[in-house]
């Protein structure tokens, strides 16, 4: 993941709801829950300091359709880095909801994260430390397995697309997920090339895993083709044109707390240096955050990260008439046949 200090959640225009009206979507309730008055003030001050600029509150664009946990058993989260399952823009809250609902979770970490950390102990130490953190953080979200593909961090542009795609097809056929989550294959201007590379390979893998004539050698292992019915894509929405989510998922306080904890469990994300630097920025502007008083720099850093997580979840929530939310581009099981989607939904019956 990039160092992410941005706070603006700009979601652009509301897409037409016509194409994704699955039975697992319904319109959100109209009421809005407010946060405690102190919280928005604190976080606004925090964001000012973090960015060194005026924090732009997300423009309210009206609610998106509300998504629900779809029926299924297996969730596969495929991401380039150790910590991409959980950050302020997504995934962690929905993952927590799904595993709580009974989903078995698998995390595929494509790179070795060797660059994410200092050089005191070398790249190998970063890989090991980040891998261990990924296990702890995903476990906190209810994920039971982490599969590392060990591609070199920040050298992924040169990986042959078909090779990475085929690794993912193999894993999809082995674990047969009902849900795949990843960065957004059609996201605009994600500045992290690892994100782009992996997202595109995921898009390609879920398209092709269902065709028996793609990698027919997998049949020798007893692996059958598998169509992934539900896909959830997300990307930071304040890079360039970002992306246009089409659903929101309501999060509970507990979901956000689990998400925030998972983020903090990545040691690289919480450091005394970051806490100290933020306080210096605040001091330079004559500002302070009372909640940070008396905390060590490391504790302050941890608290700031937690605030950021809550603040972003609450912004997405406010846009959609709930307290906390994450937003996604969701593709349902009939996305590939837009001319047949409504017919199937209206005419399919129980066996």
């Amino acid at each position, binding site marked *: 993941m990039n160092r992410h200090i941005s706070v603006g959640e700009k979601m652009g*225009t509301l*897409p*037409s709801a*016509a*194409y*994704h009206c699955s039975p697992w979507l319904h319109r959100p309730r109209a009421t809005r829950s407010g946060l405690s008055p102190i919280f928005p003030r604190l976080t606004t001050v925090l964001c000012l300091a973090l960015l060194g600029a005026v924090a732009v509150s997300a423009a309210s664009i009206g609610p998106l359709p509300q998504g629900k946990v779809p*029926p299924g058993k297996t969730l596969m989260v495929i991401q380039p880095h150790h910590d991409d399952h959980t950050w302020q823009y997504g995934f962690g809250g929905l993952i927590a909801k799904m595993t709580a609902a009974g989903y078995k979770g698998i995390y595929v970490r494509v790179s070795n994260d060797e660059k994410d950390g200092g050089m005191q102990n070398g790249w190998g130490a970063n890989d090991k430390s980040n891998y261990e953190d990924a296990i702890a953080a995903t476990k906190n979200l209810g994920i039971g397995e982490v599969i590392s593909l060990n591609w070199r961090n920040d050298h992924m542009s040169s990986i*042959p*697309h*078909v090779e990475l*795609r085929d690794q993912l097809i193999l894993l999809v056929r082995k674990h047969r997920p009902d849900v795949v989550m990843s960065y957004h294959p*059609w996201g605009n201007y994600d500045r992290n090339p690892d994100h782009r590379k992996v997202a*595109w390979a995921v*898009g*390609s893998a*879920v*398209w*092709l895993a*269902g*065709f*028996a*004539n*793609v990698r*027919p050698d997998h049949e020798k292992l007893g692996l059958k083709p598998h*169509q992934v*019915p539900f896909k959830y894509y997300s990307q930071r929405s304040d890079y360039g044109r970002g992306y*246009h989510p*089409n659903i929101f998922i309501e999060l509970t306080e507990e979901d956000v707390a689990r998400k925030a904890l998972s983020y903090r469990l990545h040691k690289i994300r919480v450091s005394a240096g970051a806490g100290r630097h933020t306080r210096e920025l605040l001091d330079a502007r004559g500002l302070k955050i009372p909640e940070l008083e008396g905390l060590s720099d490391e504790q302050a850093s941890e608290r700031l990260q937690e605030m950021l997580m809550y603040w972003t979840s609450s912004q997405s929530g406010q846009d959609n008439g709930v307290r906390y939310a994450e937003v996604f*581009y969701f*593709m349902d*099981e009939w*996305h*590939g*046949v*837009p*001319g*047949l989607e*409504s*017919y*199937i939904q209206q*005419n*399919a*019956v*129980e*066996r």
Partner: protein
Amino acid sequence: MNFLKQRMTTTLLVASLLLVFGSSPAAAADKKVVLVITADASDYILAAGGTIAKMLDAGAEGYLVRVTNDDKDSWDLTPEETARRTREESEQAAKILGFKEVESLGYRAGELGGVSPTELRDRILFYIRLYKPAVLFIPNPYAEYVEVLDRFYVGQAAEDARRAASLSNYQPPFAVVGLETHVTPELYYYAQPFDPRRREAESTATFVPQPKALDIASTFDKKLRAAQALKTINHSTAMRIKDRLESTDRRLPLLDEINEESVNRLVEINIHKLAEIAAKDTEHSQAEEFHYAGVEYQIPSKYLQ
């Protein structure tokens, strides 16, 4: 100096386009060549078949370049048998729409991510210089959420090929064998309605492709018959839908028995709905949607004046 050069070039381009094709792109479409580039056998029919048939009915000469061999999209058939059958069926479908010729480039379906974009561009460039189309149909590489990524690769290569075909420093050997540069004045970007924002213009500039819906009522039946000719792909789609439903204890009565009749009915429902989606909020009852770049959309209005 650069600005002057650029301006002179643009003026010459405008002059040559207007001289050769007149001010009505439609007139060019009626009398000239229509070249359609498609990644696979079905996409261009589902997204643009009615409009293409209309142009060919009106007297244009049609050529189809099908980039992949569709060897993946079948149910219980080997890649080789799938490719063989789909080639035959795609030629039948093209004949129904009125095409004169189909060129199958034979790339393996689903594998274009491993093909050099320059190679793909130059294969398409060849046909642009060979047929010198007045109208070019290509998959829209800017359409989002099109999961069949071959369509993106082909659209991107075809767009680049159209530009490169007009410039003599691309593929100089082609000129040696008589394939001169060619400017294609009309360009239609097509895509099935996966992208919820497909009706938004790409920008506010006047010279970028604009969303456009065209009436296909008069050629709807041709489009339907062409789509139904793709028996292997249609059977595969029906089986996948049935498979997914059965895996979740559901069924679609229409597909209780999968045979030619039920598959054709499924195709008919699909084609009707696609035409209805494209016609929504337009004056048409059955339509297709494009992003269109005609002469007037390719040149800033200040130069045209």
